[in-house]
């Protein structure tokens, strides 16, 4: 019972198809209260659909469980009241000002002391001096701030963010994440989809979705160490050609050029060593490095999903 109380999301066997396309397959998610969980995976893997299923915007074909302690299939209205959802595409009214947008959200949520709430949100997010600007005239970073303010105005217990920082500059991204962490410290549970590895590393937990399946779960360290991946980095001339050749070698799962260095990864250390040995001459030298999350995910994406089901 106590365990149930602390899980903000506890959903099992989630399935959703559009026509004959299975977009989400048997996804089970459990997110503890106050945790930030990152959703990663290639485009079209089912991240957005999963988020929409959780906040009641889509009806699942099957699956059961609780969101914020309520049956997520039947109590969507109550869940919506305590959930904030920030869409991938800016979805506030571009022909209304910042303040008008927030005022609308406050009214539709029937918030008490509406004016104070809106003024407070404007202040907190630094939107105060721009409150009379039309939302459509804002730059990407400011739109994102506004969207976050709108999604959190009703002080939700659960925040779902769908690629919230796409197209936002690094400084604004950093500020955004600092805000997310501050809110999580207050007990807010966050589920965020992203393509950025540095953002994934800022999450408490990470889930990797591929082809509608949640294939890996855990902290960044757990995922890296659990992958069994070995990575070597080599620096020297002619990186482009070496990368292209290495990709085709036995024992190499991925090879990728990073400026003047090439990173190769594989599951078997000896096989990988054999593959890279011919290139170790002259100025070229290999060093074994800790695989990064990106190495792990690139490798996950390039392997057929059936591999993971077999494990």
């Amino acid at each position, binding site marked *: 019972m106590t365990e149930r109380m602390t899980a903000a999301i506890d959903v099992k066997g989630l399935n959703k198809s559009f026509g004959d396309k299975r977009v989400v397959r048997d996804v089970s998610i459990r997110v503890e209260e106050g945790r930030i969980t990152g959703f990663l995976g290639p485009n079209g893997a089912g991240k957005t659909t999963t988020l929409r299923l959780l*906040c*009641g*915007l*889509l009806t699942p074909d099957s699956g059961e469980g609780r969101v914020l302690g309520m049956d997520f299939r039947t109590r969507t209205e109550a869940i*919506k009241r305590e959930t904030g*959802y920030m869409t991938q*595409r800016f*979805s*506030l009214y571009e022909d209304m000002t910042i303040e008008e947008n927030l005022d609308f959200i406050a009214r*539709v949520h029937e918030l008490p002391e509406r004016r104070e709430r809106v003024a407070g949100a404007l202040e907190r997010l630094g939107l105060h001096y721009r409150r009379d600007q039309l939302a459509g005239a804002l730059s990407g970073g400011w739109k994102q701030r506004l969207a976050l303010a709108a999604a959190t105005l009703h002080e939700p217990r659960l925040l779902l963010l769908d690629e919230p920082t796409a197209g936002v500059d690094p400084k604004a991204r950093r500020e955004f994440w600092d805000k997310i962490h501050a809110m999580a410290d207050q007990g807010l549970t966050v589920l965020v989809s992203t393509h950025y590895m540095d953002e994934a590393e800022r999450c408490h937990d990470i889930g990797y979705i591929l082809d509608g399946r949640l294939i890996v779960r855990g902290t960044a360290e757990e995922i890296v160490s659990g992958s069994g991946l070995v990575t070597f980095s080599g620096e020297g001339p002619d990186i482009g050609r070496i990368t292209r050749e290495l990709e085709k070698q036995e024992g190499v799962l991925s090879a990728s050029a990073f400026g003047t260095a090439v990173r190769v990864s594989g599951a078997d250390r000896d096989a990988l060593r054999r593959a890279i040995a011919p290139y170790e001459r002259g100025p070229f030298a290999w060093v074994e490095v800790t695989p990064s999350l990106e190495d792990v995910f690139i490798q996950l994406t390039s392997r057929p999903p059936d591999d993971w089901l077999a494990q």
Partner: protein
Amino acid sequence: MKRLSLARIVAVMVKEFTQLRRDRITYAMILVMPLMQLLLFGYAINTDPRHLPAAVVAHDHGRLADAVVATLERTSYIDVRYLPASEGEMDRMIRRGDILLALTIPPDFSQRVLKGDRTQILAEIDATDPIAAGAVSAAVAALPSYAVQQDLRGPAARPAGSPPFEVVVHRLYNPEGITSYNIVPGLLAIILSMTLVMMTSMAVTREVERGTMESLLATPATPFEVMIGKLLPYVAVGIIQTAVVLILARVLFSVPMAQSLAGWFALSVGIVLFIIGNLALGYLISTLVRSQLQAMQVSMFYIMPSLFLSGFMFPFRGLPLWAQAIGEVMPITHFLRIVRGSLLKGQMLGDMGPDLLALGAFLIAVAALTLARSRTTLD
């Protein structure tokens, strides 16, 4: 001078065709709309209305009185549908718009015609619509020279040029046959339909197209709340439009207005029902189409028959029965009767009963369909 590139023109052309093919509703509109409109309006529109409904009160049941009625029907312009017992009942019929012609044959009609005395038949014509009234009065005016001639032989036969009886024509409601008295109140119906259906036909599609629907659905607002909240502002728009049109109708065209408070009340009930009905229809269209462009096209598709088959442009009673059936389904047909009935004929709530009920039924049906189509999800 820049070189004109045929290849680039072709590139743009091919792209346009590809997009046109993708947009199924536009595609259908290009092919189906002209065909349907051609068939529908080609067969329905008739500027020489026939089979207009009439009632006769015959105080004389003699052979000659029957002959007058029979002759009237033979013209094919008039169908005698009712034989009410009293003039009072017949008055109600013409005021409600059930008939366009009310004929009263006096008690001693046959006798006086046979005796060669001058006698008169009273023909009251609903002149609200000058076109229909023209057809009716032409048919009625010809009556004395054709009717009963063959029934009169021997001493009762008249010399040529001296008809056996006279028809006294009373043009009711619009005695001078002023076209604007009929058209201007009709324009109120058209203006309300066009603007309100078009404006709300984009209400939902606009949110979907701009992506704001996703945020709206993530809030606790229910589809019913969203629908009501979206439509209410347009009720105000409709009421303002109505006020402007009525004021101009009075000031510029001297159109008669309702004469009593009860008359205004009856008209107001009709106006509000009509406005909400149109808004609901627009909202329904909005839930059926995928883009604002499609919403415009479907609205246009509705506007055409509402001009031609409602009685706005052509007398409703002169349309073929199947076209009248289509007209009866459209709220504008009923509203036209209400607004003309109120302003020109002084109709009260009781006279408008069937049309008000029809508007109410339309509203409930469309609202129910719309709610069934609206969803709380993006599925």
